[in-house]
């Protein structure tokens, strides 16, 4: 499967120190300002529940591949959401199902608190659910 975007993010993070990772994350969030999230999609139907800030995720399918884009009202979370949706867009259902906690950990690298790691795991589960890549679990 093509995880090149994911690898880019992971390798960049690995090369940075703690402080710089944090700023990198904020930079990602800032860059995303040029791709505004559709206002009309910021509704309850696209809201991911259980976060410290609000997170909305859009899901689309083309040629049996899943595409995600997300938004949050907090910049740090927006950066995390962007890494996740960029990394795991373009995968098939079967490929998405193979993404695990270990993948997510590499996007985290201790720069961020445990709480946010839990948030990122929840995000992974959420996009897997949207894509039907979690057998037996329907997206809400």
């Amino acid at each position, binding site marked *: 499967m093509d995880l090149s975007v994911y690898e880019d993010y992971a390798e960049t993070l690995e090369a940075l120190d703690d402080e710089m990772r*944090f*700023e990198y994350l904020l930079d990602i969030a800032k860059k995303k300002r040029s791709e505004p999230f559709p206002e009309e999609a910021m509704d309850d139907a696209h809201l991911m529940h259980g976060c410290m800030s609000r997170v909305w995720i859009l899901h689309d399918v083309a040629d049996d591949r899943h595409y995600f884009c997300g938004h949050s009202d*907090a910049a740090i979370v927006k950066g995390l959401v962007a890494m996740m949706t960029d990394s795991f867009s373009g995968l098939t259902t079967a490929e998405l199902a193979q993404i695990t906690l270990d993948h997510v950990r590499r996007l985290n690298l201790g720069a961020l608190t445990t709480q946010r790691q839990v948030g990122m795991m929840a995000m992974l589960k959420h996009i897997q659910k949207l894509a039907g890549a979690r057998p037996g679990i329907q997206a809400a």
Partner: protein
Amino acid sequence: MTAIPAIREIPARGRNTYDPAVVRADFPILSRTVYNKPLRFLDNGASAQKPQSVLDALQNSYASEYANVHRGAHFLSGAATEAYEGVREKAAGLLNAPGPDNIVFTKNVTESINLVACSWADAHLSAGDEIVITEMEHHANIVPWQLLRDRKGIVLKIAPVEDDGSFVLERFAALLTEGTKLVSVTHVSNVLGTAVPVAEVTRLAKDAGACVLIDGAQGVVHQPVDVQAIGCDFYAFTGHKLYGPTGVGILYGRTDRLAEMPPWQGGGDMIDTVSFEKTVYADPPMRFEAGTPPFVQAIGLGAAIDYVQALGMDAIGAHEHALCAHAMETLRDVPGVRPVGEAPDKAAIVSFVVDGLHSLDVGAILDRQGVAVRVGHHCAQPLMARMGIESTVRASMALYNTTEEIDALAAGIRHAQKLLG
């Protein structure tokens, strides 16, 4: 090598120069760094740090005086029981309660409130009876009454807070009727810092014939409390916010109230005699303490009470009051910072929002500067809705905080504005 705890000199009561630098040395954790920056701990409203004397008391209890309380016919059980029961007297002293029998040990203030809801209120309230709380309650003083409402059909009435966070006595008084059976209010708002005039609230409630419970979680830590002067029936607080260990809380109850309350949990320790036909319950406070209590934690809380008493709650309050004034002034000077909660009578809890920035981002960037604050709804979602906000950043001060830490907070906010701007 085991470090032998130094015999610590307890600061003289009522000394007139309060030196936070001296006090800080009593708290080992305050000398650590986070992200290579000195720790500026401004999240005391969630839980306060522990002085060495509390840590020593816990260590000593487990290392030298440990056995279950109220049970063994042996030396250690006697020693543990004596230490544990002695804490009832210390807690009574802290609150100026008539005596140790007015003090019930619980696991936290949440449990103290649930105890009153499940025992006193369940036995004495019926459908249509009214309970008055305020808009600024912590969920711990909302949800137990909603559960009671669902069980018994009581009516919950909500006293308003003003836009600036102040509590207007007249607006509260307007809610009192003949049907008001209980008034349950916070002493100090954990979000706004607003200090509720609890003595006046109690007087008005008593005139209406209501029982009064005060959630003192944020009250007892910032000022002297005299439950007899207030005149309340119940006063609840939690040990971990008063520099004590987690797992232990206090419910003060007036003697007649405790006497009219049925047990709420059954088990060992809360009985006089048990047979399969009939069980006779113990008198208060033991009636409400089923099972092995958190006696080690209680002993730790005793050391915490000794600690704050030695410093003097008046002196602590004065120090924090000055810090709070400095914080309000400093934050007002930062463009884009909007304080939430500017009541004239206010304890050292400062909530604010920063224009254009999410609280979570502000908190995370402050964290990187070593400044620990809390962000979110602070377990007071109805208050957030009332104030028309989703969350705040909250700096809550303790006896060991300094103006330099407040200045670091302000600098951190400016840094966040720069990074996220």
